[in-house]
């Protein structure tokens, strides 16, 4: 669908990740949490793709699966023309090649408290990747680490300290520095600013924007916060229950959401001042679990516009305005 000359850096085809569970104690492994249930999209170089959606809809899982940090259940992931994951193992690149590629693809983790090794100094956390992927001397590594930390707004003196001594915002910046230290081309950012206060959030987002410009980076940016996403990202993918329900340019989607779920989501974004008037779409109905996915459209149990077909048939992707896709029977 994308005919642009812009280079596509990542392509995801029908990605799936199921976690096996047993419903009852000692039962059989017959049930699965379908965290990511068949997702396809592509990302252009030097753009930011925002991913939004309810908590638990599979955003983090998707991010990790793309980077092969968890083994996907099915699908294909192509990075820069190389197949880094495929169900057919023969197609995939070799392990050593993958290790090399890891120097180009990075992830910033959601939880700033769990993603730094509490027993490593900041220096060793940040320099670990440099050591692995670049042939540099000790001093050069240190210099490089200090440089990137400063770039992320951290004092060079913090290098001898340990993670517990830093606030959440600072930790998040360290995590970002770690990912960026090895000069990646592509970064999955998993809610890098949730749970931070607004001023720190701003600092971090600015940094990421700077880097994108300076280094030509590509991001997948996972977030709850529409206020951020709408201005920060070029494109947005809205996820619901393991699937993408709407995909398109950020501005358009924010201004004019098509999918009922996106509409509800955007209407729920808090006002920016008490005077602002806003009508919220209230969702009713039961929230399905990722184990028992409803037949037909996944959103049918809560959708205000539900009709019979929604309960029977899973909607196909509809191309609207040339640059956006929506998965909903309303737009036949």
């Amino acid at each position: 669908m994308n005919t642009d000359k812009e280079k596509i850096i990542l392509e995801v085809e029908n990605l799936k990740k199921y976690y096996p569970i047993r419903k009852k104690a000692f039962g059989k492994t017959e049930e699965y949490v379908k965290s990511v249930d068949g997702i396809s999209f592509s990302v252009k170089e030097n753009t930011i793709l925002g991913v939004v959606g309810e908590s638990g809809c599979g955003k983090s899982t998707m991010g990790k699966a793309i980077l092969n940090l968890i083994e996907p259940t099915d699908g294909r992931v192509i990075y820069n023309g190389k197949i880094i994951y495929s169900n057919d193992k023969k197609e995939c690149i070799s392990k050593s090649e993958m290790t090399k590629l890891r120097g180009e693809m990075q992830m910033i983790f959601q939880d700033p408290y769990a993603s730094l090794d509490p027993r490593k100094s900041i220096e060793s956390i940040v320099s670990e990747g440099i050591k692995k992927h670049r042939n540099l001397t000790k001093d050069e590594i240190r210099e490089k680490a200090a440089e990137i930390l400063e770039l992320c707004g951290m004092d060079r003196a913090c290098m001898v300290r340990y993670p517990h001594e830093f606030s959440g915002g600072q930790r998040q910046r360290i995590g970002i520095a770690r990912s960026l230290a090895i000069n990646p081309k592509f970064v999955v950012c998993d809610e890098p600013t949730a749970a931070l206060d607004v001023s720190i959030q701003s600092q971090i987002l600015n940094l990421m924007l700077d880097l994108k410009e300076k280094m030509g980076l590509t991001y997948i940016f996972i977030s709850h916060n529409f206020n951020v996403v709408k201005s920060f990202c070029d494109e947005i993918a809205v996820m619901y229950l393991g699937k993408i329900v709407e995909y398109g340019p950020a501005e358009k989607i924010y201004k004019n959401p098509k999918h009922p779920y996106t509409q509800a989501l955007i209407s729920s974004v808090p006002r920016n001042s008490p005077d602002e008037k806003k009508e919220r779409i209230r969702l009713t109905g039961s929230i399905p679990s990722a184990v028992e996915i409803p037949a037909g459209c996944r959103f049918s149990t809560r959708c205000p516009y539900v009709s019979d077909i929604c309960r029977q048939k899973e909607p196909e992707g509809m191309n609207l305005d040339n640059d956006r896709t929506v998965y909903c029977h309303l737009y036949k």
Partner: protein
Amino acid sequence: MRKFLLKRLGVALIVLFGVSVIVFTLIHLQPGNPYLNMIDPSMSPDVVEQKLRELGYYDPIYIQYMKWIGRAITGDFGYSTQFNAPVFSIILDALGNTILISVASFIVSSVLAIVIGIITAEKSGTWVDYLVTVLSFIGISIPTFFFALILIKIFGYDLAILPSSGMETLTESYTGIAYIFDVIKHMILPVTVLSLTQTATLIRYTRSSMLDALSQDYMRTAQAKGLTRKQAIWTHGLRNSLISIVTVLCLQLPTLVSGALITETVFVWPGIGTLNYNAIMNRDYMLIMGITMMIAVVIVIANILADVLYAVVDPRIKVME
């Protein structure tokens, strides 16, 4: 559930087989000859050799093992060379006595440990905590045989108020309640010794799992509801720490039947521990194997039980590997 149990039982059989092979090999490798005391100096060496050959003493170990396992599978654990009786019935005789004191000390120590452990966790950092900590560490630090002897000296000799060996007063023929009291009186010292180290270890365990529970957010919630700290500890804290305590207790089950070798020996308590001691000292291979396998079976069962119980008491554990 059935499938889970079947699978676990299959694995258990492998474990039991492994245990039997290794233990059998080891005990047969060691020097020592179970038949030596059957042999009188006045017998001539030829006769002796002839006899030992008949007994299978010269067979290679693997042949001996095959013979043993062949019979063991049918439930025949052979004859004790020492007692000239079927291993099975010997173990059965001793098992009751062992269970008597081990269950008593199990109950005493679990109850004590849980109560004391919770109190110390609740009062962590105070002198009560310190005192119990020091005492429980002392409990862990005293070698069993030494503690047993000190108790005998004090209560059996200096004060002479408690019997120091056996299970009953032989010179009296008590019946009914009087008999039960008599046995209880004989149990006091060995049970005290057994309980001491168990309690001490369990206290440490309860305390730490309790402290763990205390630092959880739901404790704060409970207090925000209006429970006092103490109430919160005894309801929510206990409920959560019990999960791990219960499984630890499960893993203690094997000691209920294995008997305490040293304690039983010191107090001449005719249980599995004493039996095991005699069996080791007399190289009574069949008896050693019998006891080993019995204990191994109990350990394996206790492990399965621990897993099952863990899943039962903790609703979160629905996913079993």
